[in-house]
């Protein structure tokens, strides 16, 4: 009898606790339903429609997708531009940030100041830094071509050249490696000292220690970072918009995917078509992420496996 009451009380308590749990997370439930769940579903529906906001929605079936894949050269150009950008900026960015993190993991007196300097550019990302880089890349009055000239190299036309505009964006993206550097630095500091001591006893040199201790221990962080870097890199927009005035010039050489999507949606008001483009982007990112998860078993090292 007494036990029953106790059980009932306990049950009641769990119910109350559950109720309060839901109350506390309710802003997220509402927010996610309204700003994420509903829009994602709506996007799926809109992608099969033609709609310019003003006139009524028209169902077009797979029409948008057929047009995207068979007729729309802008789609292929912007996809290629974005792939190109991702293909270079992501690996170079990861290698760069690991190198900087390794340097910033040394025990120098000024290391805190240096970390600040490397990290700073990543928080200034946006319109202002795009404007600075626009000038740095100016073929005549920019610092980059001036320094190249000092080295005896005739600098290219950068943002005015169809060949060199994308590399310019990639170089600019490398300026922001500090953001990832902090993540790798935290990863490096989480590696147990005993591993290095054991390596020392085995007579390992600095390179061996990096190859057989640091790098494997860092792979989970690299994996996490690789996935997010690709997601972000596919969304490059602000720099391209500011530096080309929203056109993706010269030619279509800096018409990145999201810039094109923006033009379709907010310049030409083709909401259905833009939704279809957004879904294609989503699918591409999803496929990339799944491929990475599939191959991650071959190179990502998890400590827990060791304990088995």
């Amino acid at each position: 009898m007494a036990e029953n009451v106790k059980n009932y009380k306990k049950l009641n308590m769990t119910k109350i606790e559950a109720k309060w749990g839901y109350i506390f997370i309710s802003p997220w439930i509402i927010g996610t339903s309204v700003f994420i769940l509903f829009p994602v579903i709506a996007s799926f529906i809109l992608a099969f429609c033609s709609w310019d906001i003003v006139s009524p929605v028209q169902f077009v079936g797979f029409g948008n997708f057929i047009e995207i894949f068979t007729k729309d050269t802008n789609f292929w150009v912007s996809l290629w531009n974005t792939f190109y950008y991702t293909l270079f900026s992501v690996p170079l960015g990861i290698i760069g940030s690991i190198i900087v993190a390794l340097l910033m993991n040394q025990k120098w007196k000024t290391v805190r100041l240096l970390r600040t300097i490397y990290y700073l550019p990543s928080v200034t990302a946006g319109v202002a830094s795009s404007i600075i880089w626009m000038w740095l890349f100016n073929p005549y009055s920019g610092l980059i071509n001036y320094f190249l000239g000092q080295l005896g190299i005739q600098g290219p036309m950068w943002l005015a050249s169809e060949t060199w505009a994308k590399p310019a964006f990639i170089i600019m993206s490398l300026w922001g490696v500090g953001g990832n550097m902090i993540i790798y630095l935290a990863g490096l500091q989480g590696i147990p000292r005993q591993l290095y001591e054991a390596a020392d006893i085995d007579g390992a040199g600095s390179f061996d220690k990096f190859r057989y201790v640091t790098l494997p221990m860092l792979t989970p962080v690299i994996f996490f970072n690789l996935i997010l870097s690709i997601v972000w890199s596919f969304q490059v927009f602000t720099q391209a918009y500011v530096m080309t005035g929203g056109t993706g010039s010269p030619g279509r050489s800096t018409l990145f995917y999201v810039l094109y999507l923006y033009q379709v949606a907010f310049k030409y008001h083709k909401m259905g078509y833009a939704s279809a483009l957004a879904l294609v982007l989503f699918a591409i990112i999803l496929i990339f992420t799944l491929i990475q998860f599939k191959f991650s078993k071959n190179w990502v090292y998890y400590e827990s496996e060791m304990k088995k």
Partner: protein
Amino acid sequence: MAENKNSKSSFWEGKKLQESIMSGILYIVALLGAVVFMIPLVWMVTSSLKPAIEIMKLPPKWIPIYDVRYEPARVVSKGAGVVAKIEKNSEQTLIYIEKPLERHEFSAGAEIKVKKGKKIAMGDLLAITADGEKTADSDGKVVKIEKTATGKVVLIKQSGEYVYDKVAMARGMVIKVAQGETIFPDKIIADMPKTGKLKFIENKDKTKTVMVLDEEGYMFFKRDLPRGSVANFKDETVVKSGDKIATMLPQFFNYVDAWQTAGTKGENFTKYTLNTLLITILNILGTIISSTLVAYGFARFKFPARDGLFMIMISTMMIPAQVTMIPTFIVFQKLGWIDSFLPLIVPSFFATSAFNIFLIRQFFMTIPYELDEAAKIDGCTYFQTFTMILMPLIKPALATVAIFSFVYSWNDFLTPLIYLNDSTKYTLALGLQTFTTMYGSYFNLMMAASTILLLPILLVFFFGQRFFIEGVATSGLKG
């Protein structure tokens, strides 16, 4: 045995030496890298303080202070001819050069086919060169055949109408040619005196003009000085060539100019700053309130489907914003919220940033649950436990979230670009972009405006860098 020990210790020392050399090299690499990383921002600040006339000059000058020197320049003739007339008015001297001379230059290998004094007609053969035959451009008479270092020059005095070349210069210049004199290219026509008297003039727009005058009071050297320049001499001082007559100091007025000239409807950066501040502050508030509530719910309560919901939350981080952008835009449009700040503010009150919730939840997990239980025994409600016991303990996490949402909101460009049309409602980021399209060639003003946008970020960064780095470290790793 002893020997062995010895050699071992020297080997040890050698390795240590190697390591410290290595460390030194790495340090130099790190320093050089840091210098490269700083260049864009340093260049931005330096350039924002330069006067407009110096802004495009290379090699780069890193300290925006410029000396204005009196450096005599000379006027040199470009072509050949005869000085026909020298005319003086109160300000200028005008020299008219008749161009009766046709000048042909040939390399040493050329075979000259005319002689001095010969009359020729247009089209007559003058010489045979490696490139072929060269002919006269007009009728005339060969007046001179000259040998030069590289070959020969043939001068033909043209018959027919003369062409005037008018060279204008300041009246104070010293004329070096006389009427009737034949001049050739690179001949000095006029020179500035070695010394002269200074005169400063205050212009209406608060800039100054400095001039150097000759004894009769005629000007021969003139330079406009931007605001914030100081004269190094008094008026009427006699200066000689090479003297620093004035110094252009850092142009803080660029900031005033940039601040006031932004916008198309007469609004300026004050409006943009207020808009941005309002949006940013409300965003920080909304994010902190909603994210902590939700994080508390996920960290401290057991309820059905909790872990599933948490996984959903984490996976929403992977959804590109573009997928939700269009329907969200349509919803806000139907609500009539376009061209208002609401689409930029309201979502933050509904915990739309999974990253922030995750970060605070991780922090909650480090606080012992016994605290909650003790509070419960003392009669605290869940809400009281949350506000009175836990909130003070997670302050560092809140600071991190506040800083991140500040930076995000301050830098955000796409959302204001989509939702704000009226330029009086623009944020700083959007205003700066419009400013660039209007003043694209005024690099000093553009850099000043960029500095205005970045300054708050830089300040927050320097005072709060601990929270940036801790925040990324806790969230980035345990993920």
